[in-house]
């Protein structure tokens, strides 16, 4: 009777610390975002200027758009490393068509078609034929990348004007670009789908135990096929927007989005879901990365140093996810 392990006050404070820890884990990413923005705004006042915020939001929106499909693919336990090459290919296709005088509407349709085609190829090979996702998407990414380079004969294609896409890109509501509002609405929709529809549940279930989901009667192949097509489509839309943003087609534009995409998805996984990739987390992580890289550029860091920061952040993201899910892992 005299050796209860904890008194009531002890267990209450233990619960409180556990809740606090859980709160920080769940919402820490948002706090980090706010901290980073405040820190850089204090270090470099030009960071907080309307122009800089506008630019950051615009490039973050394009990146966030590219990573939506990737978020769900990684949440389902597969991987897609072709997304940035599909964006580069869509970028080059649009640039080539516009440069040869075909008008932006047709070019955009062609860019979208590129995304659908590569999404279908990925989905067919990985989801239907069940070939290993990593190597197949490395190969399709390589294919997309070299077709992109081939279109421009190894160099970029510059465009004289940016058409209606460019005009759309530069519409602003004060400091917030219209694109950000659109992407925010898209993410809100994605959040709804992920949280309130069974689709989201199947997604996370797939990652934990694919066989069980198949046995439960869920059309897993079709689901994954849709995910890969989604990834292809949003990557190509991002590529189209990049063409207008840069007023040129750049065949190697994808490389910087590669590590950023994986970092955003994995770091974002910490927000709200203790290590499972989710769309709100990805959005926050994209903003965080944009703020960090923009701030680092303003602090005078070279491209190489920022590249190291990106790689280090990805490692942190991975470590954080693994640490968060350590209890559910096998231990050999």
């Amino acid at each position, binding site marked *: 009777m005299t050796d209860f392990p904890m008194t009531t006050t002890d267990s209450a404070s233990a619960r409180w610390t556990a809740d606090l820890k859980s709160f920080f884990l769940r919402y820490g990413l948002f706090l980090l975002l706010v901290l980073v923005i405040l820190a850089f705004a204090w270090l470099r006042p030009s960071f907080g200027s309307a122009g800089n915020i506008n630019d950051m939001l615009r490039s973050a929106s394009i990146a966030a758009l590219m990573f939506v499909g990737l978020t769900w693919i990684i949440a389902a336990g597969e991987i897609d490393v072709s997304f940035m090459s599909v964006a580069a290919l869509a970028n080059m296709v649009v640039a080539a068509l516009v440069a040869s005088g075909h008008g932006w509407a047709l070019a955009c349709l062609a860019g979208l078609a590129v995304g659908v085609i590569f999404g279908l190829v990925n989905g067919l090979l990985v989801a239907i*034929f069940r*070939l290993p996702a*990593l190597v197949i998407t*490395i*190969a399709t990414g390589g294919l997309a990348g070299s077709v992109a380079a*081939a279109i421009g004969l190894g160099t970029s294609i510059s465009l004289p004007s940016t058409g209606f896409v460019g005009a759309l890109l530069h519409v602003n509501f004060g400091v917030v670009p219209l694109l950000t509002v659109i992407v925010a609405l898209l993410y809100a929709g994605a959040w709804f789908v992920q949280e309130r529809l069974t689709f989201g549940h199947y997604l996370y279930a797939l990652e934990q135990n694919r066989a069980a989901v198949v046995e439960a009667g869920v059309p897993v192949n079709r689901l994954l096929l849709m995910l890969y097509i989604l990834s292809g489509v949003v990557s190509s839309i991002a590529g189209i927007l990049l063409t207008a943003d840069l007023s040129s087609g750049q065949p190697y534009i994808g490389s910087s989005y590669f590590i950023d995409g994986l970092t955003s998805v994995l770091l974002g996984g910490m927000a709200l879901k203790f290590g499972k990739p989710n769309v709100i987390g990805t959005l926050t992580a994209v903003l965080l990365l944009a703020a960090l890289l923009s701030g680092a550029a303003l602090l005078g860091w070279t491209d190489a140093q920022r590249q190291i920061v990106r*790689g280090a952040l990805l490692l942190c*993201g991975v470590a954080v996810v693994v640490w968060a899910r350590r209890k559910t892992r096998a231990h050999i």
Partner: protein
Amino acid sequence: MMALKSSPLTLRLLAFVLLLGVIAAVFQSFAPAYLSENNLHALLRHMSVNGLTAIGLTFVIVVRHFDLSFPGVASLGAMTLGWLLANDYSLAESVAGGIGIGLLAGLINGSVISYLRLPDIVTTIATGGVAVGLSYFYSNGTSLSENFFMSGILDLNDSKFLSLDMPVVILLGAAIVAFIVLHCTRFGRAFYATGENRRSALFSGIRVKAYVLTAFGLCGALACLAITLLVASSGAANVTAGNQLMMPAFAAVYLGAALFGAPSIPATLAGTLLMSAMLNGFTLLAIPYYYSDAIVSTVLILAIGIFDPKLTTLVGGLFSRKPAR
């Protein structure tokens, strides 16, 4: 993989020789210089670079992991080599430095993946990115070529040993050592055991974590050895040196594994020979470099797809005659 593994070795060797013959015939018809002695030497030298990288990657794939960092690590190794040469270190020291960096990076990869249990794909992507960033520090991203001629690094490419080009000798040496280690020793068999069933291997007394660590270390070191040969042949070290290593290495390992049923050193060499034969032919036909990635990617997809047992049973089922119900 059971159905294909049971095909006799002779059939597989025949298939390999046939493929090689077809490639040679096709390219010879388009470019008569293909089978000339000069071109064959160039082909073999190209094969040495890709072959060394592929041998390193074979170890990682045998333990059922992936390494996407070796292009970045190779670039870092190349710049280290270039910097050491430019600062008057001896040839042996510089090459050792380059390969040492590769070994270090590989060991870091391996320990993070195997002891900290981080997922291999994303971790190696991250370390590759960090390595590329670090490689810019030597010369701010410009290429290094001071002292190269004087130091003798170019001899690594130009000299001959028993009338074979030095790069080919290095590849053969590495391949023989790797073959003996992987296929003729218990140490090597343990790699396969770790890959096929990690849990059983662990309970059989194999230190699986150490083997994964070793595999990644070897991959990094061999990738840097490969890039040393590339630097020797091009005469300059630049930060993008490693980029062209990635796709052919994966294609070679998977093509070889598809042809011979499982990843192994001879299979990888066969795959590398086929890939180099194709790429060399396309260079000879003056097809631009950006098409080569497309070709390598297509070969990789085909290699995986055609020899995947699920697909073969699927297609086989389409063509078999089932009795009417």
